[in-house]
């Protein structure tokens, strides 16, 4: 059966604001999944809290809507327990860059094969427009009482220094381009990150579609090649970081892709040979009668170092 983008839609009513950037992300997602013909039962979307957190309910693949900031942590357990799954995280800028920042960095260190989609609209939408970690200092979006007093952080640069092996930036209104980024991220083996710029029509009156239309340009326009060649990892990384700080015009596309780093799953399988052979959920832990596979004999062999055989004095 060939799946069309529509086959990935659920019948849950999408309750984002009309004109929300999330619609572009969702459309790109359906198209990417269809193009890759992803098996919905083998695909999992894990989300945090906020407008982006609702994404899994709108997609007909497994969907785990978790806690604020913790989607990556849940996803890590899901993926490690079943390394055959395609696991994708959707989170907002407050979710991934604020409350859940520690997990975001940790995932880069792990290079576990999880795709992280950052819905980056620079405000906390669902709680009525507070400044998020990606809003620049001094800016005052619609519902702020005062201009933002904190400096912003750069998600692309952060992903690069954290160790993500695929780092890209997309724009929600350029859905076809975003779809291609998502496909590339899914095909990549390792931790992948896409910073998806998106307008918040209700609370962000600065970063509007008009704003982005003037600023956004494609990295490949000036011949940027994100692929790391063997031995050139740090040069590519430094240049990618540099490009991620361009502000006058905002580059989108793939900043960095490194296919030479071992994933966490691969590291485990190197240590534990049976890990990939029979993935953990399908490993037998009990016999047909319900008794554990570790019977008395296996127990004694396995834990020999804790067992003392008594030699009674005569």
């Amino acid at each position, binding site marked *: 059966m060939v799946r069309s983008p529509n086959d990935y839609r659920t019948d849950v009513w999408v309750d984002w604001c009309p004109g929300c950037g999330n619609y572009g992300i969702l459309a790109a997602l359906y198209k990417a999944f269809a193009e890759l013909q992803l098996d919905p039962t083998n695909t999992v979307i894990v989300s945090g809290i906020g407008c982006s957190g609702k994404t899994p309910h709108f997609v007909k693949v497994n969907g785990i809507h978790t806690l604020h900031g913790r989607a990556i942590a849940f996803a890590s*357990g899901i993926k490690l327990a079943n390394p055959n799954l395609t696991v994708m995280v959707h989170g907002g800028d407050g979710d991934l860059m604020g409350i859940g920042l*520690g997990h975001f960095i940790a995932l880069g260190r792990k290079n576990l094969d999880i795709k992280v989609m950052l819905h980056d609209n620079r405000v906390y939408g669902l709680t009525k427009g507070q400044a998020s970690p990606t809003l620049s200092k001094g800016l005052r979006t619609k519902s702020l009482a005062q201009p933002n007093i904190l400096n912003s952080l750069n998600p692309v640069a952060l992903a690069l220094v954290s160790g993500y092996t695929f780092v890209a930036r997309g724009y929600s209104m350029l859905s076809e381009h975003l779809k291609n980024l998502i496909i590339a991220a899914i095909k990549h083996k390792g931790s992948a990150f896409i910073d998806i710029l998106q307008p918040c029509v209700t609370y962000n009156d600065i970063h509007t579609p008009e704003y982005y239309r003037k600023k956004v340009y494609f990295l490949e326009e000036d011949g940027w090649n994100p692929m790391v060649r063997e031995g050139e990892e740090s040069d590519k990384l430094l240049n990618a970081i540099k490009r991620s700080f361009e502000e006058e015009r905002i580059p989108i596309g793939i900043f960095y892709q490194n296919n030479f780093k071992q994933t966490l799953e691969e590291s485990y399988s190197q240590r534990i040979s049976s890990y990939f052979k029979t993935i953990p959920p399908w490993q037998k832990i009990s016999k047909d009668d319900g008794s554990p596979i570790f019977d008395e004999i296996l127990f004694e062999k396995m834990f020999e170092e804790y067992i003392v055989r008594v030699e009674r004095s005569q």
Partner: protein
Amino acid sequence: MYNNILILLGGPQGSGLESSAQILSKTFARLGYGLFADREYFSNIKGRHSYIHMRISSKGLPVSLSYPVQILCAMDAETFFTHFQDVEEKGVIVYDVSTLSTKYSAIPSIEPGLRERLRVSFSEFGLDGSISSLIRYLKAVKKTRFIGLDYQKILSELSQKFTLSPAHASRYLSSIIVGAIVGLTGLKLDAVAYALASRFAGRPQLIEHNMFIIESVSKTVMKEFGTLCELEPSANSLEKMLVSSGNDVIAMAKIVGGLRFQSYYPITPAADESFTLETFERLEVDGESLGSLIVIQTEDEIAAICSAIGASLSGVRSSTSTSGPGFSLMVEALGYAGQIESPVVITYYQRGAPSTGQPTRGGQSDLLFTLYASHGEFPRIVLSSGDHLEAFYDTILALNLSERYNVPVIHLLDKFLANSIVTTPLPEISKVKIDRGKTVFEKPDFKRFDLSRPISLRTFLGSNIIQWAAGDEHDEYGHIDEDPLNRRKMYEKRMKKLEIIDSEVPVEERAIFYGQDDARLVMIGWGSVKGVALDAVKEMELSGIKCGYLHLKMFSPFPSEYVKSILSKFKPENLVAVEHNYLAQASQLVRQQTGILIGNSIVKYTGRPIYLSELVNALNRILNGERRVVLEYGA
């Protein structure tokens, strides 16, 4: 000849005391003796005073500790000063003759409180504060017998014999203590060799060097002082014994129970369990792999529990191990697991609290916290264990109940159990069953939160089913739903699981009464109070006072009917809560759940175990009319 002996060995943290305890415990076990050893240490890597307090028995397996001890082995002067009052009259103290002129006031690691107590004692005794003055005093007043050894000389013999540098030789300091104990109790060197071979398998030099010291010291001790504390041959009938810490026995149980994922963030006293699990990650026996166990050290405890829940959604048995500060961070995700009806097991080793508290000391002050942690109402199981074997079976029970009822299970333990090395019979694996609850892997239009059955079917991510889950209130599919009537149905379905668990889990897994209806006093306790309480029952019986002990194991859902049926036979003044916390938390819960007032309490919150001697004394004080006794013995 002794059939039961208490020994205390102490020295600076990081000087090999722990491996001495392992060698000794295996040596005793090899000869059929039962052993119970508590390890007391500071939150410190090197230098602060640590000690091991052990009971060895030739009749049965000991389950508690007591004071005074028969033997004190001091690796350094601080140990001597800290523990000389713990030694019985005519007891034996092993010490280093080079410390004779050392005064307590010159030891910087002695804390101000003890320093002051020593100052008071020494001025009372009219001593100058040195070890030699103390020896004179103890010889005269307590008839203490002393075994003075020249530790440095023993080490230089080692260094000469094997051409080791003095620094290298000094690493064997703790073996001097082992040798002294072997000599004093008359243990066979064959058994020591067995223990060394087991502890240092594949490292023949370590075995040789340790054996050299142990043999020469034990011979010296026997020759010059005699086998002062000779042990009767063991009358225990076990052919094999498990010698393990609580952390290790739980790790073994998790492996037998089919665990496939363990996440943790380093914390005392829980991390050793994860470390042990990781050493067995290949689940290999005779070169054949029986599966794979992923053990991951996460960035924090929040990630630890979230990833464990994630792994559970993927269909593996998963758990995380922690202590109080870590559990505090896990609380939000605990509620999430309750809300999305996900199995997960949290192995919770309590330590001295609140806040950082006493990271390496014991306590039982988190019971009420585990019962109420996280916002909102959701079903959870809180299960506690009283000793190593109970903990073994309960670990598997926790995994089973969690999957059978799709609820988070908190397995509540404490530092006393985590770090004590105990001999037990091997667990009876044939008694163990794996129950994964009802699962389904193929079903069109699957409803993860199906309201038509009390416990919804569980599936695995990656089976032939699509599932959704949300911490939001949800419909049967797992999609957000705020409809008030749906809310009521979902809420009730979740909460009713408590009634189902209450009706289905056998009461013997949840509370055990040791005693009879005519007991003068019934103790009510939980966790590692069990061993000492049972020993106190026997001890009181010797002086003609019948006591009983009600051992509480499951706190949620609480076995109210059973507990009520036992306790209602007694008057409040005949009931005594025995707990390691200030409020006697379990007794408050008993009151709340059964209406029964427990009229007395014996509590201890110094971070040290409850000792048999002080518990018996406290029970007698309760009999004499005191309502609350606070215990504080132990360094």
